[in-house]
């Protein structure tokens, strides 16, 4: 059987079952034999198999899920969770970076500012959005929108999904480092609640540049790391082919990062990961956002900023002798 490209390699047994189910459905439609029982049996089997496969994923498999071609992106969640979204463009200095989208919207009636990385679905859009790898103007647009949110007392909701910052000549010329650094500084003091959620890949400075907040959440099968597994492998193992080892060594999946206190909350994904049931995923994400916004919204701003700074200060693993 040929490989189904919408499924990852380790999901292929499930893909085969699903294909069989689909086949039977077709037969069922134009024949008189009742094969519903058989379909039901296979569906049950498929679910069990998925559960079995997903109960024991390696860090590398999770990183593949985080970049799954069908995984929901920022605009998908905006569509599912928010109302009246109006996209706002540009950094007012150089350009609009389509690798980061942002704008105002309502969450259960309340105005919020949304900022997120955006990857493309098809080749054309992937090129336009530079595979979700931002350039300096993307970070600067994000900063402009954050300051806008501060002025109008709207909470900021960010969605992180990038392999990392774009490594190009122009990006360096326009001050990639400064653009990322300034966002870190501004976010640490922004006088409005910030909630960040890693929805797919949380890759290096490009991710962190919209990732400083009061509450940082991760979807169950998203990843967060200082460098992509390939990047880490090519530097430390001198070969990008050792990415799976690098992924294991770095601990890029949500549970360990939560245990280490580096993130605050994990949002459980539906069986087989987010793309299998975007609606359920969106509902859970929305619930988590509402719950946190409600809590953070009740805190006086100075307390909020104090807690945000303390949260950053406690990041570190060292010994005091």
């Amino acid at each position: 059987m040929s490989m189904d490209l919408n499924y990852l390699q380790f999901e292929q047994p499930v893909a085969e079952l699903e294909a069989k189910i689909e086949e039977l459905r077709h037969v069922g439609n134009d024949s008189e034999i009742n094969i519903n029982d058989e379909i039901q049996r296979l569906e049950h089997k498929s679910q069990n198999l998925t559960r079995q496969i997903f109960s024991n994923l390696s860090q590398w498999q999770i990183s593949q899920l985080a970049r799954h071609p069908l995984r929901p992106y920022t605009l998908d969640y905006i569509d599912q969770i928010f109302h009246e979204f109006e996209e706002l463009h540009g950094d007012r200095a150089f350009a609009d970076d389509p690798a980061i989208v942002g704008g105002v919207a309502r969450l259960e009636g309340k105005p919020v500012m949304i900022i997120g990385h955006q990857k493309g679905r098809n080749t054309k859009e992937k090129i336009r959005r530079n595979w979700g790898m931002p350039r300096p103007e993307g970070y600067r647009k994000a900063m402009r929108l954050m300051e806008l949110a501060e002025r109008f007392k709207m909470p900021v909701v960010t969605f992180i999904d990038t392999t990392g910052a774009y490594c190009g000549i122009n990006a360096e010329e326009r001050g990639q480092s400064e653009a990322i650094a300034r966002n870190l500084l501004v976010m640490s003091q922004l006088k409005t609640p910030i909630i960040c959620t890693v929805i797919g890949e949380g890759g290096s400075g490009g991710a962190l540049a919209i990732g400083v907040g009061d509450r940082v959440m991760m979807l169950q099968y998203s990843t967060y790391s200082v460098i992509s597994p390939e990047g880490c492998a090519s530097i430390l193992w001198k070969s990008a082919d050792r990415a799976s080892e690098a992924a294991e060594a770095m601990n890029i999946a949500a549970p360990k990062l939560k245990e280490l206190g580096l993130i605050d909350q994990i949002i459980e994904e539906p069986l087989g990961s987010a793309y299998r049931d975007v609606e359920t995923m969106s509902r859970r994400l929305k619930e988590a956002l509402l719950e946190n916004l409600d809590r953070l919204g009740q805190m006086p701003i100075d307390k909020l900023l104090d807690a945000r700074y303390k949260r950053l200060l406690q990041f570190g693993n060292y010994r005091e002798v």
Partner: protein
Amino acid sequence: MSWFEKILPSGLRTSTSNKRAVPEGLWTKCTGCSAVLFRADLERNLDVCPKCNHHMRIGARRRLDTFLDKDGRLEIGGNIEPDDVLRFKDSKKYRDRLIQAQKATGEKDALVAMKGAVKGFPLVAAAFEFRFMGGSMGSVVGERFVRAADVSMKEHIPLVCFSASGGARMQEALFSLMQMAKTSAAVAQLRKRGIPFVSVLTDPTMGGVSASFAMLGDINVAEPNALIGFAGPRVIEQTVRETLPEGFQRSEFLLEHGAIDFIADRRDLRDRISKVMAMFMNEATPY
């Protein structure tokens, strides 16, 4: 060539290009122009080549020793040491890399911070030890930076940081990424309190260090011809598949593109930094 080498048939001689040209000791070679220099002269010249003005890399202690006045120095955060909660291992264990770096440099980690003064003007200074795992930023570097900033805030004196780093320390994984946020947040605190922060970018300042506090100075100063940027030149070359322009990511390139305030000769740093700090703090220029 020694008399012994002279009598050897040429086939037996080791090619000199494979050998270290000058042994450690009295003489040293400029890494820029290859001029053979008398070590004592070079040291008096703060490791700047008297022939070509090349600024050689210098260690953290020596940096602070040449920048700060002799009296009244107090180290900050010296009691903080690295840990390895992830038990990270690539081709080598992180623990072993740490021990090796500690032995080679005599430092516990890649940043040294001190309270002191420049020409009698009190300030806090921190400097990276590039020989310690490429000056990479992990939890200890982040924590020491924050503690240095804390002393600045408590005493209301400026903070000066000399960066020389390859970026975030991969062996500390996400902990190291978070040091970018932590140190940048500390700079925000300095700004809020009106305490000057001078970032001195030295060769090289890359990755997570350049993309956090190092680019956030109230003034950003660079030494001549230092490599400064986010992504390394080789990574960029591989990504864009183009040859990089001449002088790309060097101090002069950054000055031209508006990323830094000025380029300063190492031998002038004490004068120029203390002069500007005195103006920021509205005090008389120290002489």
